[in-house]
C-alpha cells in the first residue's frame, strides 16, 4: 500500500510531474523510491517483469539525491525519479543475466553507459527488468523464451507483453516504474511498447551508446526509452544520448529534445500506405489504425501515399543479425552451452547461424546500402512515415510466434509493398521510430509508429508529443492492476 504521502495515482504520473512534486517537497526521493521499489518487487513478478531488484542500492542513492535536493543542487527533471533497466544493460556488481540461463551468474564491474548517464542525472535505478533470452537473436517460438518466464501483458495476463524488452514494456504499463530502458535490434522496443500501451522510442542507430549493453548485432542494436509519454521519451533521450568513444558505433552526436524548434504540422509531410490496412483481416484493428491516420489528418499534417521499393529487407536483416550474433555468441554455440536456453527454436537458430557464409553477410550488407538509399529517396518527398507498430494485438502466451496465420488477407494482391517492410528496412537503415498508443481492439492496445530520417529523433518525438496532446490513449491504465 502506498504511504499517506504517495497516493495510488503517483504511480501513473509522468517524469515531469514526479520531479515537480519532489522539488515541491510533497515527498522525498527516499519515500518515492521506497514506494516504487516496493511496488516493483511486489507486482513485478506477477508479470515476470522483474529480473533483479536493486532496492537496497536504490535507497542509498535516494538518500544522496535528497541531500542534493535539500542543498538546492538540481540536475534536471530525471533527478530523484526511479526507473528500470532491461537486463541486457550492466549495473555495476549486480547480476546482468541477459535473460538467459547460461549467463545466470554474470556480473560486470561497471554500469552500462546509458545507466551511468541516468545515474549522473540523479535518476534512481530500482530494478533490472525481464527480457527474452539473448534478446531473441536466434529467433524464438514462444513467449516463454526467458530465464524469468514469459512477459505477461498487464492488459491481459493470458497474453504476451511482447519482446524482447518484455519486462520494460509490462513494468511501465503496470505503473511499476515511471520509465524503463529497453533495446531494439529488430522490433524489441516497438513491439512491447505497442502490445502494452507504452510509448517507446527506438533512437537513430549510434545516438545512444551501446557500451555495457549485451551485443546481439553490432550494427543493428539500439538502446532506447520506454515511457508513459513521448515527452518523457524526449527527456530520457536528452540524457542518455551522446557520443561515446567506448562504443565503436557511436555517432558522436548530442541530442536536445526541443519541440519548440520543430516546424508546424502543416509543414511536416506524412507518408503512409492506406493499402496496408486493407490487407488486415481484423476489421476492429483496421478501424483503430484508420482512425489514427484520420487524427493525423485532422492535426493538419499533409498526407501522401508512399511505398517502399521491393527488396529483400527481411532476408538482409535476418542474415546480418544471425551472422553478427553467431560471432558474438560463438563460444556459447560451439561449446554446446546454447542448449541451456529455454526456447528450442532459438537454440536451433543460433546453431544454424554457423551455416551462413561471408558472402551471405556481405551480400546482406550490400542490400543494406540500397535499403538506406531507398529510404533516403522516400524522405525527399515526406518528412515522417506513419505505419502500425504491430498489425495485431498482443499474441496469446501459447501462440507459436513463428507460425502466426490469419492476420492478412490472402485474397487481395496489393499493388505495391506499401510500408509493410518498414520494420526491417527502418532497422537496416538505423532510422528513429516512436511507437504511440493509438487505440484499442478487443480490449487490447494498438499503436502507430512515427519514423523519420536518421537523427530526426527530435522531429519524431515532437510529432508524438503533439499527437498525445490531443489524445489520451497513452494515459489509459490496464484494468485489474493495483
Amino acid at each position, binding site marked *: 500500500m502506498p504511504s499517506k504521502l504517495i497516493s495510488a495515482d503517483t504511480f501513473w504520473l509522468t517524469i515531469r510531474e514526479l520531479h515537480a512534486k519532489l522539488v515541491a517537497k510533497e515527498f522525498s526521493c527516499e519515500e518515492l523510491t521506497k514506494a516504487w521499489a516496493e511496488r516493483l518487487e511486489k507486482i513485478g513478478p506477477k508479470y515476470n517483469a522483474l529480473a533483479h531488484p536493486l532496492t537496497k542500492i536504490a535507497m542509498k542513492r535516494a538518500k544522496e539525491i535528497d541531500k542534493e535536493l535539500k542543498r538546492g543542487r538540481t540536475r534536471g527533471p530525471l533527478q530523484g525519479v526511479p526507473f528500470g533497466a532491461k537486463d541486457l544493460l550492466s549495473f555495476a556488481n549486480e547480476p546482468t543475466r541477459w535473460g538467459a540461463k547460461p549467463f545466470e551468474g554474470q556480473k560486470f564491474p561497471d554500469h552500462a553507459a546509458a545507466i551511468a548517464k541516468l545515474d549522473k542525472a540523479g535518476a534512481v535505478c530500482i530494478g533490472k527488468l525481464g527480457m527474452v533470452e539473448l534478446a531473441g537473436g*536466434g*529467433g524464438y517460438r514462444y513467449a516463454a523464451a526467458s530465464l524469468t518466464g514469459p512477459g505477461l501483458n498487464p492488459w491481459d495476463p493470458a497474453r504476451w507483453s511482447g519482446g524482447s524488452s518484455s519486462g520494460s514494456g509490462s513494468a511501465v504499463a503496470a505503473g511499476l516504474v515511471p520509465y524503463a530502458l529497453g533495446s531494439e535490434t529488430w522490433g524489441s522496443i516497438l513491439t512491447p511498447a505497442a502490445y502494452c500501451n507504452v510509448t517507446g522510442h527506438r533512437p537513430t542507430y549510434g545516438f545512444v551508446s551501446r557500451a555495457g549493453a549485451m551485443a546481439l548485432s553490432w*550494427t543493428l542494436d539500439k538502446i532506447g526509452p520506454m515511457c508513459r509519454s513521448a515527452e518523457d521519451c524526449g527527456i530520457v533521450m536528452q540524457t542518455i544520448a551522446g557520443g561515446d568513444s567506448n562504443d565503436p558505433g557511436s555517432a558522436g552526436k548530442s541530442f536536445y529534445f526541443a519541440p519548440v524548434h520543430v516546424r508546424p504540422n502543416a509543414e511536416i509531410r506524412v507518408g503512409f500506405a492506406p493499402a496496408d490496412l486493407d490487407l488486415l483481416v481484423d476489421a476492429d484493428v483496421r478501424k483503430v489504425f484508420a482512425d489514427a491516420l484520420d487524427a493525423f489528418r485532422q492535426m493538419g499534417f499533409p498526407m501522401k501515399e508512399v511505398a517502399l521499393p521491393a*527488396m*529483400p529487407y527481411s*532476408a*538482409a536483416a*535476418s*542474415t546480418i543479425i*544471425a551472422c553478427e550474433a553467431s560471432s558474438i555468441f560463438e563460444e556459447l554455440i560451439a561449446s554446446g552451452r546454447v542448449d541451456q536456453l529455454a526456447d*528450442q*527454436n532459438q*537454440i*536451433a*537458430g543460433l*546453431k*544454424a*547461424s554457423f*551455416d*551462413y*557464409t561471408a558472402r*551471405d553477410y*556481405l*551480400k*546482406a*550488407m*550490400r*542490400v*543494406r*546500402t*540500397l535499403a*538506406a538509399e531507398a529510404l533516403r529517396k522516400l524522405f525527399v518527398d515526406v518528412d515522417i512515415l506513419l505505419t502500425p507498430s504491430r498489425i495485431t494485438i498482443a499474441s496469446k502466451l501459447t501462440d507459436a510466434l513463428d507460425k502466426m496465420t490469419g492476420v492478412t488477407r490472402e485474397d487481395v494482391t496489393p499493388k505495391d509493398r506499401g510500408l509493410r517492410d518498414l520494420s526491417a528496412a527502418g532497422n*537496416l537503415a538505423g532510422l528513429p521510430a516512436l511507437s504511440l498508443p493509438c487505440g484499442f481492439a478487443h480490449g487490447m492496445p494498438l499503436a502507430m509508429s512515427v519514423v523519420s530520417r536518421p537523427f530526426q529523433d527530435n522531429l519524431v518525438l515532437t510529432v508524438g508529443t503533439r499527437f498525445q496532446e490531443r489524445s489520451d490513449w497513452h494515459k489509459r491504465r490496464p484494468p485489474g492492476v493495483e
Partner: protein
Amino acid sequence: MVRRRDFAWFLMAAAPPATAQTAADDLAAAKERVKSNSQELNKFSLSIATEPAFAFKAY
C-alpha cells in the same frame, strides 16, 4: 460385441503418434531458413559498384 467407446479406444491406440517438433526438426528447419535467406539474397541483383554498408577507415 464391441462397444463404440471400446472401438474408439482401439482406433486411438492404433493411431500413429502425433508429430512432435524435436530439437532435430527445429535445427533442420533453422538450417532451411538459412538456405532460404541466402537464396532470397542471391536472387537480388546488385551492381558491382554497390559496397557493403560499413566503412573501414584507417585512422
